[in-house]
């Protein structure tokens, strides 16, 4: 009950913030919530199941293009585009997983990285259809959702909050379910899990699919909320970013992904206002974190104060 109370309080606070914050910070928060959904998906794979992927940019971009291309080429509205984007992310993750999960550890990282790189190059290669590195602006029709436009502040925030709420709720249910314990078992000792009758390959493939679904939904929402789809979102940095969010907030904690995304966003925003060397500041902060709080902020909280924090 205490756990659900905490998470509901976070959602209520986010809803309230959307009403009271100045426009700039409300938009930032909408962006953070979408990125947090991406990080939650990554967290399920990495934080809970121990799958250290360097290919999640592929799933995010698959969602972005899965939503953006039908909106651009065929005039789809936001609802079917969002659904198509989420499905594209999930499907891409399952296809990659079918092959990549035959490996583990460093090999898994490299294989997922290569798939993501191949996808990024594919986007550039089919420039005339994808917009390539320059990308394209999502048309207004693609940003229309039930009579509202996602280009407006209110609907943008509402959709971001709605997506975040669904993602957080499902994440919480998942990690507290039997399958959640299977994920942790795979992370902690795959051989022992196998001896308990779990099929590691099938279970990890499911995790990849769910993680891809989250990433795809986030990519689709990002495209529709901010009106742009481009090849840079398939670059390696978008595989690294969710990892950093999760490491910062706390791997294997449901709220850690969102907390990490928020902290990283504002660390960048504030540091870039203070110094030209903002990338150095962000890097130094991450080094300090890894050295002194290797389990992330909520991992540290869980270790000291709240052992049952999911």
């Amino acid at each position, binding site marked *: 009950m205490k756990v659900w109370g905490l998470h509901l309080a976070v959602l209520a606070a986010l809803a309230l913030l959307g009403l009271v914050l*100045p*426009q*700039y910070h409300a*938009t*930032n928060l909408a*962006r953070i919530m979408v990125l947090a959904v991406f990080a939650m998906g990554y967290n399920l794979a990495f934080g809970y199941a121990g799958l250290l992927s360097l290919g999640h940019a592929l799933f995010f971009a698959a969602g972005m293009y899965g939503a953006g291309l039908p909106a651009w080429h065929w005039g789809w509205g936001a609802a079917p585009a969002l659904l198509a984007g989420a499905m594209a992310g999930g499907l891409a993750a399952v296809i990659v997983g079918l092959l990549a999960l035959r490996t583990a550890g460093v090999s898994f990282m490299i294989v997922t990285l290569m798939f993501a790189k191949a996808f990024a*190059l594919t986007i*550039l*290669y089919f*420039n*005339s259809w994808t*917009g*390539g*590195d*320059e*990308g*394209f*602006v*999502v048309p207004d029709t693609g940003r229309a959702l039930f009579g509202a436009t996602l*280009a*407006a502040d209110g609907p943008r925030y509402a959709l971001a909050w709605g997506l975040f709420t669904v993602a957080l709720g499902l994440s919480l249910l998942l990690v507290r379910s039997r399958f959640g314990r299977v994920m942790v078992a795979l992370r902690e000792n795959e051989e022992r899990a196998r001896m308990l009758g779990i099929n590691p390959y099938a279970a990890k493939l499911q995790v990849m699919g769910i993680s891809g679904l989250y990433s795809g939904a986030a990519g689709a929402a990002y495209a529709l909320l*901010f*009106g*742009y789809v*481009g*090849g*840079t*979102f398939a670059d390696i940095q978008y595989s690294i970013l969710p990892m950093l969010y999760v490491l910062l907030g706390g791997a294997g904690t449901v709220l850690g992904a969102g907390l990490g995304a928020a902290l990283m966003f504002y660390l*960048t*925003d504030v540091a*870039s*206002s*203070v*110094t*030209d060397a*903002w*990338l150095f500041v962000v890097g130094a902060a991450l080094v300090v974190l890894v050295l002194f709080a290797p389990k992330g902020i909520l991992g540290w909280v869980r270790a000291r104060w709240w052992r049952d924090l999911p």
Partner: protein
Amino acid sequence: MTTTSLFAPSRRRVLQGMGAGLATAALPGHVFAQGAPLKVGFQLHRTGIGAAYGRWYERTATAAATAINAAGGIAGRPVELLFEDDATDPKRGAEVVEKLAGPAACDLIMGTLFSHVVMGSAPRAGELKVPYLVCSEGYHVASGALNRWTLQPAITDVRSQIQSMAPWVAANLGKKVTLIYPDYAFGHDHRDFFTAAMPGQGGEVIAQIGIPPTETSFTRYFPQIPAETEVLYHVMVGPAVLTFVKELGEFYGTGARPQLFGFLDSLEAVDTATPGLEFLEGSHFWEGHCRMKQADAGEAETAYRAAVGVDDMGASVSDPADISTYSHMFSCWETLYFIKQAVEASGYAGVADREKLVEAMEAISDLPAGPERPQGGMVFNGKTHQAFGTQNISQIQGGKLLRVHQTSLEDGMYANDTDYTAMSF
């Protein structure tokens, strides 16, 4: 004159500001701007792939603001530039637009070069209803892909550049052209526009060789160049340029080779006398604005060159190894003067007048050469939000870029593909 990074100026900026202030105070007979500053946000490629451009864009815009303020500002108000790094990234670019339009309270935003950052940022500028003036060369503005709030008033687009130079290439270098280009959007623009332009000149593109963006060696592509090629049109960019040219030289050796024609984008911020580039001797390049001071340079060119701190060879006056991005950076200077013209014509007083300001911009047509436009006269098309101007073709002679041809303004004109004035705000 004030130039700040948002919220907290760095020590270097404070010193720059003091220096500019002292220089301004030393000028006799100037009217000092008074009143609340006109805040111009500058989306700057300070880091990332565009950093070499960003460094010079910042210097050029700062010099323009200093000159404008020394002459009384804009509508009597001093110009304040607020630079914010976008990391040459479209995601960060959109966030920077929000920051400049929001907490930084800028009246308008300018300065973006890289096309993908423009594409990623323009939707947010449109939603925030802030004028967004880019210095990008991309055809994306005139194509109609963006919105009423996005304009490109001080640099021509790649379609216009190619269209205006294709006749000279066909008439002077050869009719059978092979294109070598990076296999992504920038290269595809060159491929498509040049290929379309050549038949009208009695020429043809006989081969198109796209180089994948991850390629580090080009040797295996050169055998694909047809033997009958008369002109090799190349637009490679980035660090690979040196390798590309060196390997091209090794491929042809001392034997006969086709004429070479390229865009100076390949060599912006790179010294043409760099060892390894000897093979480019005698080849031709497009230049938006001639890097090296030409014999016929007028007063406006001389004054501009001094104001932005560039010597006659195109390098920084304080560091001969620091080569400017001269072919593009004039657009920052001229954009700021375009803003001045529009603000003064519209009677703009604050953000509530932004629509009026955009309408005043759209009403501007003639942009004559002079101190405000050292690159040359331009015409602004209010319907397509795009400027049209002259282009330069230079030849490398003795390691120096010497202009051999200048196109007319009309050479680069094309029919409107859109009418932004018909769009709502």
